[in-house]
Protein backbone atom coordinates (compact mmCIF):
# COMPACT_ATOMS: atom_id res chain seq x y z
CA UNK A 1 0.00 0.00 0.00
CA UNK A 2 1.47 3.37 -1.02
CA UNK A 3 2.28 6.05 1.53
CA UNK A 4 -0.57 8.45 2.23
CA UNK A 5 -0.05 11.86 0.63
CA UNK A 6 -0.43 15.19 2.42
CA UNK A 7 -3.45 15.84 0.16
CA UNK A 8 -5.12 12.64 1.36
CA UNK A 9 -4.46 13.55 4.98
CA UNK A 10 -5.93 17.01 4.37
CA UNK A 11 -9.02 15.48 2.76
CA UNK A 12 -9.62 13.15 5.74
CA UNK A 13 -9.06 16.03 8.17
CA UNK A 14 -11.72 18.04 6.29
CA UNK A 15 -14.17 15.16 6.68
CA UNK A 16 -13.38 15.01 10.41
CA UNK A 17 -13.51 18.82 10.87
CA UNK A 18 -10.07 18.60 12.41
CA UNK A 19 -7.50 21.38 12.19
CA UNK A 20 -3.94 20.09 11.76
CA UNK A 21 -0.60 21.89 11.62
CA UNK A 22 1.82 21.18 8.73
CA UNK A 23 3.97 19.26 11.15
CA UNK A 24 1.03 17.12 12.29
CA UNK A 25 0.08 16.40 8.67
CA UNK A 26 3.60 15.16 7.88
CA UNK A 27 3.68 12.96 10.97
CA UNK A 28 0.22 11.54 10.23
CA UNK A 29 1.23 10.67 6.64
CA UNK A 30 3.97 8.53 8.08
CA UNK A 31 2.13 7.03 11.07
CA UNK A 32 -1.19 6.32 9.34
CA UNK A 33 0.67 4.71 6.43
CA UNK A 34 2.53 2.41 8.81
CA UNK A 35 -0.66 1.48 10.69
CA UNK A 36 -2.63 0.86 7.48
CA UNK A 37 0.17 -1.21 6.06
CA UNK A 38 0.07 -3.38 9.16
CA UNK A 39 -3.75 -3.53 9.08
CA UNK A 40 -3.62 -4.81 5.50
CA UNK A 41 -2.90 -8.32 6.84
CA UNK A 42 -6.66 -8.75 7.24
CA UNK A 43 -6.80 -8.96 3.44
CA UNK A 44 -5.22 -12.40 3.77
CA UNK A 45 -8.52 -13.61 5.20
CA UNK A 46 -11.16 -15.19 3.02
CA UNK A 47 -14.40 -13.51 4.06
CA UNK A 48 -16.64 -14.67 1.24
CA UNK A 49 -20.00 -15.68 2.68
CA UNK A 50 -19.03 -14.29 6.10
CA UNK A 51 -21.59 -11.93 7.61
CA UNK A 52 -20.19 -8.75 9.16
CA UNK A 53 -20.47 -8.63 12.95
CA UNK A 54 -21.99 -5.32 13.97
CA UNK A 55 -22.70 -6.13 17.60
CA UNK A 56 -21.78 -8.71 20.19
CA UNK A 57 -25.44 -9.00 21.15
CA UNK A 58 -28.26 -10.82 19.40
CA UNK A 59 -30.46 -7.75 19.94
CA UNK A 60 -32.69 -6.22 17.30
CA UNK A 61 -34.68 -3.07 17.98
CA UNK A 62 -35.16 -2.45 21.68
CA UNK A 63 -38.46 -0.70 22.27
CA UNK A 64 -39.83 0.94 25.39
CA UNK A 65 -43.25 2.36 26.19
CA UNK A 66 -43.56 5.90 24.87
CA UNK A 67 -44.20 7.50 28.23
CA UNK A 68 -43.13 10.90 29.54
CA UNK A 69 -40.41 11.08 32.18
CA UNK A 70 -38.46 14.00 33.66
CA UNK A 71 -35.37 15.01 31.70
CA UNK A 72 -32.78 17.75 32.12
CA UNK A 73 -34.11 21.22 32.87
CA UNK A 74 -33.31 24.01 30.40
CA UNK A 75 -30.84 25.44 32.88
CA UNK A 76 -29.07 22.10 33.33
CA UNK A 77 -28.89 21.54 29.59
CA UNK A 78 -27.32 24.97 29.01
CA UNK A 79 -25.01 25.02 32.01
CA UNK A 80 -22.00 23.63 30.12
CA UNK A 81 -22.60 25.66 26.96
CA UNK A 82 -19.65 27.78 25.80
CA UNK A 83 -22.23 30.51 25.06
CA UNK A 84 -25.97 30.68 25.67
CA UNK A 85 -28.60 33.37 25.30
CA UNK A 86 -32.34 33.49 25.98
CA UNK A 87 -32.53 29.76 26.65
CA UNK A 88 -30.60 28.80 23.49
CA UNK A 89 -27.09 27.71 22.58
CA UNK A 90 -25.42 30.72 21.00
CA UNK A 91 -23.20 30.22 17.94
CA UNK A 92 -21.65 32.45 15.30
CA UNK A 93 -23.89 33.38 12.38
CA UNK A 94 -24.05 30.63 9.76
CA UNK A 95 -26.25 32.54 7.24
CA UNK A 96 -25.53 35.83 5.52
Amino acid at each position, binding site marked *: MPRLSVQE*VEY*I*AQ*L*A*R*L*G*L*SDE*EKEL*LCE*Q*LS*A*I*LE*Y*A*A*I*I*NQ*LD*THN*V*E*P*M*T*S*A*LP*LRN*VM*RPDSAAPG*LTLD*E*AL*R*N*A*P*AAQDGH*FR*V*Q*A*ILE
Partner: protein
Amino acid sequence: MPTSELCDLSIYVARERLRQRALSALELTRVHLERIAALDSQLHAYITVTAEVALEQARQADERLARGDDAPLLGIPLAIKDVICTRGVRTTCGSRILEHFVPPYDATVVTRLHEAGAVLLGKTNTDEFAMGSSTEHSAFFPTANPWDLERVPGGSSGGSAAAVAAGCAMGALGSDTGGSVRQPAALCGVVGLKPTYGRVSRYGLVAHGSSLDQIGVLTRDVRDAALLLRVVAGHDPRDATSLDAPVSDYVQELGDGADLCGVKVGVPREYFISGIEAGVESAVREALHVMEEAGAELIEVSLPHTQYGIPIYYLIATAEASSNLARYDGVRYGLRVEDTDMWRTFFRTRALGFGREVKRRIMLGTYALSAGYYDAYYLKAQKARTLLRQDFERALAEVDVLACPTTPGVAFRIGQKLDDPLQMYLSDVFTVSLNLVGMCGISVPCGFVEGLPVGLQLMGPPLGESTLLRIAYAYQQRTNWHTYRPPL
Protein backbone atom coordinates in the same frame (compact mmCIF):
# COMPACT_ATOMS: atom_id res chain seq x y z
CA MET B 1 4.04 9.09 54.54
CA PRO B 2 1.14 7.90 56.71
CA THR B 3 1.01 4.16 56.57
CA SER B 4 -2.31 2.87 57.64
CA GLU B 5 -3.33 -0.73 57.70
CA LEU B 6 -6.82 0.58 56.98
CA CYS B 7 -5.72 1.46 53.44
CA ASP B 8 -4.69 -2.14 52.95
CA LEU B 9 -7.94 -3.81 54.00
CA SER B 10 -10.08 -5.63 51.49
CA ILE B 11 -13.53 -4.17 50.88
CA TYR B 12 -14.98 -7.38 52.26
CA VAL B 13 -13.16 -7.10 55.59
CA ALA B 14 -13.72 -3.34 55.88
CA ARG B 15 -17.46 -3.95 55.45
CA GLU B 16 -17.47 -6.40 58.34
CA ARG B 17 -15.67 -3.93 60.59
CA LEU B 18 -17.99 -1.10 59.59
CA ARG B 19 -21.04 -3.21 60.35
CA GLN B 20 -19.68 -4.26 63.70
CA ARG B 21 -19.05 -0.53 64.33
CA ALA B 22 -15.39 -1.37 65.00
CA LEU B 23 -14.55 1.23 62.34
CA SER B 24 -16.34 4.34 61.14
CA ALA B 25 -16.81 5.31 57.52
CA LEU B 26 -15.46 8.76 58.36
CA GLU B 27 -12.22 7.34 59.73
CA LEU B 28 -11.83 5.00 56.76
CA THR B 29 -12.42 7.85 54.33
CA ARG B 30 -10.07 10.20 56.18
CA VAL B 31 -7.14 7.79 56.09
CA HIS B 32 -7.66 7.32 52.38
CA LEU B 33 -7.76 11.07 51.76
CA GLU B 34 -4.58 11.44 53.84
CA ARG B 35 -2.85 8.75 51.85
CA ILE B 36 -3.89 10.38 48.59
CA ALA B 37 -2.58 13.73 49.88
CA ALA B 38 0.73 12.10 50.75
CA LEU B 39 1.25 9.98 47.64
CA ASP B 40 -0.59 11.49 44.73
CA SER B 41 2.02 14.17 44.03
CA GLN B 42 4.23 11.25 42.95
CA LEU B 43 1.58 8.95 41.47
CA HIS B 44 -0.80 11.39 39.76
CA ALA B 45 -3.54 8.77 39.88
CA TYR B 46 -6.31 11.34 40.41
CA ILE B 47 -7.42 14.17 38.15
CA THR B 48 -9.92 15.39 40.74
CA VAL B 49 -10.02 14.50 44.45
CA THR B 50 -13.49 15.04 45.89
CA ALA B 51 -12.54 15.34 49.56
CA GLU B 52 -15.60 17.30 50.67
CA VAL B 53 -18.03 15.06 48.83
CA ALA B 54 -16.27 12.03 50.30
CA LEU B 55 -16.41 13.28 53.90
CA GLU B 56 -20.09 14.18 53.56
CA GLN B 57 -20.91 10.79 52.04
CA ALA B 58 -18.93 9.09 54.82
CA ARG B 59 -20.95 10.94 57.46
CA GLN B 60 -24.16 9.85 55.78
CA ALA B 61 -22.86 6.28 55.60
CA ASP B 62 -22.14 6.32 59.33
CA GLU B 63 -25.72 7.47 59.99
CA ARG B 64 -27.07 4.69 57.82
CA LEU B 65 -24.79 2.17 59.55
CA ALA B 66 -26.05 3.37 62.93
CA ARG B 67 -29.59 2.67 61.76
CA GLY B 68 -28.61 -0.89 60.84
CA ASP B 69 -28.71 -0.25 57.10
CA ASP B 70 -27.19 -3.22 55.28
CA ALA B 71 -26.36 -1.69 51.87
CA PRO B 72 -23.52 -3.65 50.23
CA LEU B 73 -20.87 -0.88 49.99
CA LEU B 74 -21.89 1.33 52.88
CA GLY B 75 -18.90 3.53 53.81
CA ILE B 76 -16.47 2.04 51.29
CA PRO B 77 -14.20 4.68 49.65
CA LEU B 78 -13.87 4.12 45.91
CA ALA B 79 -12.46 5.90 42.86
CA ILE B 80 -14.08 6.34 39.47
CA LYS B 81 -12.35 6.71 36.13
CA ASP B 82 -12.82 10.18 34.74
CA VAL B 83 -14.74 8.99 31.67
CA ILE B 84 -17.79 8.13 33.80
CA CYS B 85 -20.22 10.99 34.45
CA THR B 86 -20.68 12.19 38.02
CA ARG B 87 -23.37 14.78 38.63
CA GLY B 88 -21.85 18.03 39.87
CA VAL B 89 -18.29 16.65 39.76
CA ARG B 90 -16.04 17.64 36.85
CA THR B 91 -15.62 14.82 34.31
CA THR B 92 -12.75 15.55 31.92
CA CYS B 93 -12.10 12.30 30.03
CA GLY B 94 -8.45 13.32 30.36
CA SER B 95 -9.07 15.89 27.62
CA ARG B 96 -8.68 19.65 27.24
CA ILE B 97 -11.95 19.67 25.34
CA LEU B 98 -13.86 18.60 28.48
CA GLU B 99 -11.51 20.17 31.04
CA HIS B 100 -14.33 22.16 32.68
CA PHE B 101 -17.28 19.87 31.92
CA VAL B 102 -19.55 19.25 34.92
CA PRO B 103 -22.15 16.60 34.08
CA PRO B 104 -25.77 17.40 34.95
CA TYR B 105 -26.47 13.72 35.61
CA ASP B 106 -24.91 10.57 37.08
CA ALA B 107 -23.98 7.51 35.07
CA THR B 108 -26.13 4.53 36.05
CA VAL B 109 -23.12 2.84 37.69
CA VAL B 110 -22.59 5.94 39.83
CA THR B 111 -26.25 5.94 40.89
CA ARG B 112 -25.86 2.28 41.85
CA LEU B 113 -22.71 2.95 43.87
CA HIS B 114 -24.49 5.80 45.70
CA GLU B 115 -27.46 3.59 46.49
CA ALA B 116 -25.07 0.91 47.75
CA GLY B 117 -23.55 3.48 50.11
CA ALA B 118 -20.11 3.91 48.50
CA VAL B 119 -17.98 7.00 49.16
CA LEU B 120 -16.50 8.81 46.13
CA LEU B 121 -12.83 9.70 46.68
CA GLY B 122 -12.34 11.22 43.26
CA LYS B 123 -11.97 10.84 39.53
CA THR B 124 -8.95 8.98 38.19
CA ASN B 125 -6.57 9.71 35.37
CA THR B 126 -7.01 8.16 31.96
CA ASP B 127 -5.63 8.34 28.47
CA GLU B 128 -7.66 10.99 26.65
CA PHE B 129 -11.12 9.55 25.94
CA ALA B 130 -9.73 6.18 27.12
CA MET B 131 -7.53 5.95 24.00
CA GLY B 132 -4.21 4.53 25.03
CA SER B 133 -2.37 1.77 26.85
CA SER B 134 -0.20 3.78 29.24
CA THR B 135 -2.16 6.79 30.62
CA GLU B 136 0.55 8.96 29.02
CA HIS B 137 -2.08 10.31 26.61
CA SER B 138 -3.89 12.13 29.42
CA ALA B 139 -3.97 15.83 28.51
CA PHE B 140 -2.98 16.69 32.08
CA PHE B 141 -0.15 14.43 33.26
CA PRO B 142 1.00 10.81 33.09
CA THR B 143 0.31 8.49 36.02
CA ALA B 144 3.20 6.57 37.57
CA ASN B 145 3.23 2.86 38.31
CA PRO B 146 3.32 2.39 42.11
CA TRP B 147 5.81 -0.47 41.67
CA ASP B 148 8.29 1.74 39.81
CA LEU B 149 7.59 5.43 39.45
CA GLU B 150 9.61 5.58 36.22
CA ARG B 151 7.18 3.21 34.54
CA VAL B 152 3.65 3.47 33.17
CA PRO B 153 0.71 1.95 35.07
CA GLY B 154 -0.81 0.73 31.81
CA GLY B 155 -3.96 2.24 30.44
CA SER B 156 -6.29 3.59 29.78
CA SER B 157 -7.65 3.03 33.33
CA GLY B 158 -4.13 3.63 34.68
CA GLY B 159 -5.27 6.08 37.37
CA SER B 160 -7.78 3.59 38.77
CA ALA B 161 -5.26 0.74 38.74
CA ALA B 162 -2.50 2.82 40.36
CA ALA B 163 -4.87 4.17 43.03
CA VAL B 164 -6.05 0.68 44.00
CA ALA B 165 -2.51 -0.78 43.97
CA ALA B 166 -1.19 2.08 46.12
CA GLY B 167 -3.97 1.90 48.73
CA CYS B 168 -5.38 5.25 47.56
CA ALA B 169 -8.79 3.65 46.97
CA MET B 170 -10.30 0.34 48.13
CA GLY B 171 -11.58 -0.35 44.64
CA ALA B 172 -12.31 1.53 41.44
CA LEU B 173 -14.34 1.59 38.29
CA GLY B 174 -12.64 1.63 34.92
CA SER B 175 -13.72 1.17 31.34
CA ASP B 176 -12.44 -1.46 28.94
CA THR B 177 -12.71 -1.00 25.16
CA GLY B 178 -9.66 -3.09 24.18
CA GLY B 179 -8.12 -4.07 27.51
CA SER B 180 -8.21 -0.79 29.43
CA VAL B 181 -9.22 -2.45 32.71
CA ARG B 182 -7.32 -5.74 32.43
CA GLN B 183 -4.00 -4.38 31.11
CA PRO B 184 -3.44 -1.71 33.81
CA ALA B 185 -4.62 -4.23 36.44
CA ALA B 186 -1.91 -6.61 35.23
CA LEU B 187 0.78 -3.91 35.14
CA CYS B 188 -0.11 -2.63 38.64
CA GLY B 189 -0.62 -6.05 40.28
CA VAL B 190 -4.34 -5.80 41.00
CA VAL B 191 -7.48 -7.61 39.87
CA GLY B 192 -9.33 -6.19 36.85
CA LEU B 193 -12.60 -7.58 35.53
CA LYS B 194 -14.16 -6.73 32.18
CA PRO B 195 -17.74 -8.00 32.16
CA THR B 196 -19.64 -9.33 29.15
CA TYR B 197 -20.70 -6.61 26.71
CA GLY B 198 -24.06 -5.39 28.03
CA ARG B 199 -23.67 -6.77 31.57
CA VAL B 200 -23.05 -3.28 33.01
CA SER B 201 -24.96 -0.23 31.80
CA ARG B 202 -23.00 2.22 29.66
CA TYR B 203 -25.41 5.08 30.39
CA GLY B 204 -23.18 7.99 31.42
CA LEU B 205 -19.95 6.36 30.23
CA VAL B 206 -18.52 8.78 27.67
CA ALA B 207 -18.56 6.82 24.41
CA HIS B 208 -15.33 5.61 22.80
CA GLY B 209 -16.13 2.49 20.73
CA SER B 210 -19.79 1.80 21.35
CA SER B 211 -19.84 -1.84 20.27
CA LEU B 212 -16.80 -2.55 22.48
CA ASP B 213 -17.05 -0.34 25.58
CA GLN B 214 -17.79 -1.94 28.91
CA ILE B 215 -17.38 -0.66 32.46
CA GLY B 216 -15.27 -2.92 34.67
CA VAL B 217 -14.00 -3.10 38.24
CA LEU B 218 -10.49 -2.96 39.76
CA THR B 219 -9.80 -4.32 43.24
CA ARG B 220 -6.98 -5.91 45.24
CA ASP B 221 -8.60 -9.33 45.41
CA VAL B 222 -11.12 -11.47 43.56
CA ARG B 223 -13.79 -11.45 46.27
CA ASP B 224 -13.88 -7.65 46.20
CA ALA B 225 -14.28 -7.74 42.41
CA ALA B 226 -17.29 -10.04 42.87
CA LEU B 227 -18.74 -7.63 45.45
CA LEU B 228 -18.37 -4.57 43.23
CA LEU B 229 -19.65 -6.32 40.12
CA ARG B 230 -22.79 -7.42 41.93
CA VAL B 231 -23.57 -3.76 42.68
CA VAL B 232 -22.95 -2.27 39.24
CA ALA B 233 -24.22 -5.10 37.00
CA GLY B 234 -27.74 -5.39 35.69
CA HIS B 235 -30.27 -4.24 33.14
CA ASP B 236 -30.80 -0.52 32.63
CA PRO B 237 -33.66 0.80 30.50
CA ARG B 238 -31.44 3.82 29.73
CA ASP B 239 -28.93 1.64 27.86
CA ALA B 240 -30.63 -0.27 25.04
CA THR B 241 -27.61 -2.58 24.78
CA SER B 242 -27.67 -3.59 28.44
CA LEU B 243 -28.59 -7.23 28.92
CA ASP B 244 -31.90 -8.10 30.54
CA ALA B 245 -30.49 -11.12 32.36
CA PRO B 246 -30.57 -11.79 36.11
CA VAL B 247 -27.52 -10.77 38.15
CA SER B 248 -25.99 -13.59 40.16
CA ASP B 249 -24.81 -13.25 43.72
CA TYR B 250 -21.20 -13.35 42.56
CA VAL B 251 -19.80 -13.40 46.11
CA GLN B 252 -21.83 -16.40 47.18
CA GLU B 253 -21.03 -18.20 43.92
CA LEU B 254 -17.30 -17.97 44.62
CA GLY B 255 -17.79 -21.05 46.78
CA ASP B 256 -15.01 -22.12 49.12
CA GLY B 257 -12.28 -22.02 46.47
CA ALA B 258 -11.01 -25.36 47.75
CA ASP B 259 -10.22 -26.92 44.40
CA LEU B 260 -10.80 -26.81 40.64
CA CYS B 261 -11.90 -30.42 40.17
CA GLY B 262 -13.96 -30.83 37.02
CA VAL B 263 -12.89 -27.45 35.60
CA LYS B 264 -11.55 -27.42 32.06
CA VAL B 265 -9.04 -24.68 31.35
CA GLY B 266 -8.24 -24.00 27.69
CA VAL B 267 -4.72 -22.83 26.87
CA PRO B 268 -4.79 -20.99 23.54
CA ARG B 269 -1.51 -21.72 21.77
CA GLU B 270 -1.57 -18.41 19.87
CA TYR B 271 -1.24 -16.55 23.19
CA PHE B 272 2.16 -18.05 23.92
CA ILE B 273 4.06 -16.54 21.02
CA SER B 274 7.66 -15.50 20.48
CA GLY B 275 7.07 -11.81 21.28
CA ILE B 276 6.18 -12.54 24.90
CA GLU B 277 8.73 -11.72 27.61
CA ALA B 278 10.29 -14.86 29.10
CA GLY B 279 9.51 -13.90 32.71
CA VAL B 280 5.87 -13.25 31.85
CA GLU B 281 5.52 -16.59 30.11
CA SER B 282 7.09 -18.52 32.98
CA ALA B 283 4.88 -16.78 35.58
CA VAL B 284 1.76 -17.63 33.56
CA ARG B 285 2.91 -21.23 32.96
CA GLU B 286 3.44 -21.55 36.70
CA ALA B 287 -0.11 -20.23 37.29
CA LEU B 288 -1.45 -22.87 34.89
CA HIS B 289 0.45 -25.49 36.87
CA VAL B 290 -1.15 -24.23 40.11
CA MET B 291 -4.59 -24.59 38.54
CA GLU B 292 -3.74 -28.09 37.36
CA GLU B 293 -2.58 -29.07 40.85
CA ALA B 294 -5.91 -27.76 42.15
CA GLY B 295 -7.65 -30.30 39.95
CA ALA B 296 -8.24 -28.39 36.73
CA GLU B 297 -7.76 -30.13 33.43
CA LEU B 298 -5.55 -28.15 31.02
CA ILE B 299 -6.50 -28.51 27.37
CA GLU B 300 -4.58 -26.89 24.53
CA VAL B 301 -6.94 -25.02 22.21
CA SER B 302 -6.51 -22.82 19.17
CA LEU B 303 -7.84 -19.34 18.40
CA PRO B 304 -6.46 -19.24 14.85
CA HIS B 305 -7.44 -15.65 14.03
CA THR B 306 -5.62 -14.14 17.02
CA GLN B 307 -3.00 -12.39 14.88
CA TYR B 308 -5.77 -10.41 13.16
CA GLY B 309 -7.16 -9.09 16.46
CA ILE B 310 -5.07 -5.89 16.54
CA PRO B 311 -5.84 -4.72 12.98
CA ILE B 312 -9.54 -5.62 13.32
CA TYR B 313 -9.70 -3.80 16.63
CA TYR B 314 -7.89 -0.64 15.55
CA LEU B 315 -10.05 -0.31 12.43
CA ILE B 316 -13.38 -0.86 14.20
CA ALA B 317 -12.56 1.01 17.43
CA THR B 318 -11.23 4.07 15.59
CA ALA B 319 -14.17 4.08 13.16
CA GLU B 320 -16.60 4.09 16.08
CA ALA B 321 -14.51 6.67 17.95
CA SER B 322 -14.34 9.05 14.98
CA SER B 323 -18.11 8.97 14.84
CA ASN B 324 -18.60 9.30 18.62
CA LEU B 325 -16.16 12.21 18.89
CA ALA B 326 -17.96 14.22 16.20
CA ARG B 327 -20.12 15.60 19.03
CA TYR B 328 -17.24 17.73 20.36
CA ASP B 329 -17.86 20.74 18.16
CA GLY B 330 -17.82 23.55 20.72
CA VAL B 331 -21.56 24.20 20.45
CA ARG B 332 -23.38 22.56 23.36
CA TYR B 333 -20.64 21.85 25.90
CA GLY B 334 -16.90 21.69 26.24
CA LEU B 335 -14.19 23.91 24.86
CA ARG B 336 -14.90 26.43 22.11
CA VAL B 337 -12.04 28.29 20.46
CA GLU B 338 -13.61 30.93 18.27
CA ASP B 339 -12.29 31.75 14.83
CA THR B 340 -13.63 34.07 12.14
CA ASP B 341 -16.70 31.94 11.40
CA MET B 342 -18.46 28.83 12.71
CA TRP B 343 -16.83 26.52 10.18
CA ARG B 344 -13.33 27.61 11.18
CA THR B 345 -14.38 27.50 14.83
CA PHE B 346 -15.10 23.75 14.50
CA PHE B 347 -11.62 23.10 13.13
CA ARG B 348 -9.82 25.30 15.63
CA THR B 349 -11.76 23.96 18.64
CA ARG B 350 -10.95 20.39 17.71
CA ALA B 351 -7.34 21.22 16.80
CA LEU B 352 -6.68 22.71 20.24
CA GLY B 353 -9.07 20.52 22.25
CA PHE B 354 -7.82 17.07 21.21
CA GLY B 355 -4.39 15.56 21.85
CA ARG B 356 -2.27 13.71 19.33
CA GLU B 357 -3.49 10.16 19.99
CA VAL B 358 -7.14 11.19 19.73
CA LYS B 359 -6.42 13.08 16.50
CA ARG B 360 -4.58 10.04 15.13
CA ARG B 361 -7.54 7.80 15.89
CA ILE B 362 -10.13 10.21 14.52
CA MET B 363 -8.08 10.35 11.31
CA LEU B 364 -7.66 6.56 11.09
CA GLY B 365 -11.33 5.93 11.81
CA THR B 366 -12.53 8.58 9.38
CA TYR B 367 -10.27 7.09 6.72
CA ALA B 368 -11.60 3.56 7.35
CA LEU B 369 -15.18 4.83 6.99
CA SER B 370 -14.61 7.12 4.01
CA ALA B 371 -15.95 6.52 0.52
CA GLY B 372 -13.69 4.15 -1.41
CA TYR B 373 -12.13 2.62 1.71
CA TYR B 374 -15.19 1.53 3.68
CA ASP B 375 -15.40 -1.93 2.09
CA ALA B 376 -11.67 -2.59 2.20
CA TYR B 377 -11.18 -1.60 5.83
CA TYR B 378 -14.30 -1.22 7.96
CA LEU B 379 -16.53 -3.86 6.35
CA LYS B 380 -13.61 -6.27 5.96
CA ALA B 381 -12.77 -5.82 9.65
CA GLN B 382 -16.36 -6.51 10.66
CA LYS B 383 -16.37 -9.74 8.65
CA ALA B 384 -13.06 -10.75 10.19
CA ARG B 385 -14.61 -9.98 13.58
CA THR B 386 -17.17 -12.72 12.88
CA LEU B 387 -14.32 -15.19 12.28
CA LEU B 388 -12.72 -14.16 15.56
CA ARG B 389 -15.99 -14.74 17.41
CA GLN B 390 -16.30 -18.19 15.85
CA ASP B 391 -12.82 -19.01 17.21
CA PHE B 392 -13.96 -18.18 20.73
CA GLU B 393 -17.27 -20.02 20.37
CA ARG B 394 -15.51 -23.16 19.17
CA ALA B 395 -12.90 -23.06 21.93
CA LEU B 396 -15.38 -22.31 24.71
CA ALA B 397 -17.62 -25.18 23.60
CA GLU B 398 -14.86 -27.48 24.84
CA VAL B 399 -13.59 -25.69 27.94
CA ASP B 400 -14.94 -23.52 30.79
CA VAL B 401 -12.40 -20.72 30.49
CA LEU B 402 -9.34 -19.76 28.49
CA ALA B 403 -6.14 -18.89 30.37
CA CYS B 404 -3.26 -16.81 29.02
CA PRO B 405 -1.08 -13.80 29.82
CA THR B 406 -2.92 -10.45 30.07
CA THR B 407 0.00 -8.63 28.43
CA PRO B 408 3.11 -9.77 26.53
CA GLY B 409 5.37 -7.76 28.87
CA VAL B 410 5.57 -6.02 32.23
CA ALA B 411 5.16 -2.26 32.72
CA PHE B 412 7.30 -0.29 30.26
CA ARG B 413 9.15 2.97 30.91
CA ILE B 414 7.34 6.27 30.65
CA GLY B 415 8.06 7.60 27.17
CA GLN B 416 9.31 4.28 25.78
CA LYS B 417 6.47 3.70 23.29
CA LEU B 418 5.06 7.21 23.08
CA ASP B 419 6.47 8.07 19.67
CA ASP B 420 5.66 4.74 18.07
CA PRO B 421 1.87 4.28 18.01
CA LEU B 422 2.03 0.88 16.32
CA GLN B 423 4.28 -0.52 19.08
CA MET B 424 1.84 0.88 21.64
CA TYR B 425 -1.10 -0.77 19.85
CA LEU B 426 0.72 -4.12 19.74
CA SER B 427 0.96 -4.15 23.55
CA ASP B 428 -2.83 -4.82 23.50
CA VAL B 429 -2.43 -8.06 21.54
CA PHE B 430 -3.87 -10.34 24.26
CA THR B 431 -6.78 -8.16 25.34
CA VAL B 432 -8.49 -6.68 22.25
CA SER B 433 -10.08 -9.90 20.95
CA LEU B 434 -12.28 -10.27 24.02
CA ASN B 435 -13.92 -6.89 23.40
CA LEU B 436 -14.45 -7.70 19.74
CA VAL B 437 -16.26 -10.94 20.62
CA GLY B 438 -18.12 -9.30 23.54
CA MET B 439 -17.19 -11.92 26.14
CA CYS B 440 -15.88 -11.49 29.71
CA GLY B 441 -12.40 -11.63 31.18
CA ILE B 442 -10.41 -11.04 34.33
CA SER B 443 -6.76 -10.33 35.07
CA VAL B 444 -5.35 -11.55 38.39
CA PRO B 445 -1.82 -11.08 39.78
CA CYS B 446 0.31 -14.19 39.12
CA GLY B 447 3.89 -13.20 39.86
CA PHE B 448 6.66 -10.66 39.34
CA VAL B 449 9.51 -10.07 36.95
CA GLU B 450 12.26 -8.01 38.59
CA GLY B 451 9.78 -6.45 40.99
CA LEU B 452 7.13 -5.70 38.34
CA PRO B 453 3.74 -7.47 38.43
CA VAL B 454 2.51 -10.03 35.89
CA GLY B 455 -1.17 -10.71 35.15
CA LEU B 456 -2.91 -14.00 34.39
CA GLN B 457 -5.93 -13.49 32.13
CA LEU B 458 -8.96 -15.76 32.24
CA MET B 459 -11.53 -15.35 29.47
CA GLY B 460 -15.04 -16.77 29.60
CA PRO B 461 -18.25 -17.03 27.59
CA PRO B 462 -21.06 -14.44 27.54
CA LEU B 463 -22.38 -13.99 31.10
CA GLY B 464 -19.66 -16.31 32.41
CA GLU B 465 -18.62 -13.90 35.17
CA SER B 466 -19.49 -16.33 37.99
CA THR B 467 -17.30 -19.01 36.43
CA LEU B 468 -14.37 -16.62 35.91
CA LEU B 469 -14.59 -15.33 39.46
CA ARG B 470 -14.91 -18.80 40.97
CA ILE B 471 -11.81 -20.06 39.15
CA ALA B 472 -9.83 -16.89 39.89
CA TYR B 473 -10.85 -17.15 43.55
CA ALA B 474 -9.67 -20.74 43.79
CA TYR B 475 -6.37 -19.71 42.18
CA GLN B 476 -6.02 -16.90 44.70
CA GLN B 477 -6.65 -19.29 47.61
CA ARG B 478 -3.52 -21.17 46.57
CA THR B 479 -1.24 -18.22 45.87
CA ASN B 480 -0.27 -15.02 47.66
CA TRP B 481 0.61 -12.72 44.74
CA HIS B 482 -2.38 -10.50 45.49
CA THR B 483 -1.05 -9.81 48.99
CA TYR B 484 2.17 -8.09 47.82
CA ARG B 485 2.19 -4.30 48.06
CA PRO B 486 4.29 -1.74 46.18
CA PRO B 487 7.27 -0.22 48.07
CA LEU B 488 5.87 3.29 48.52
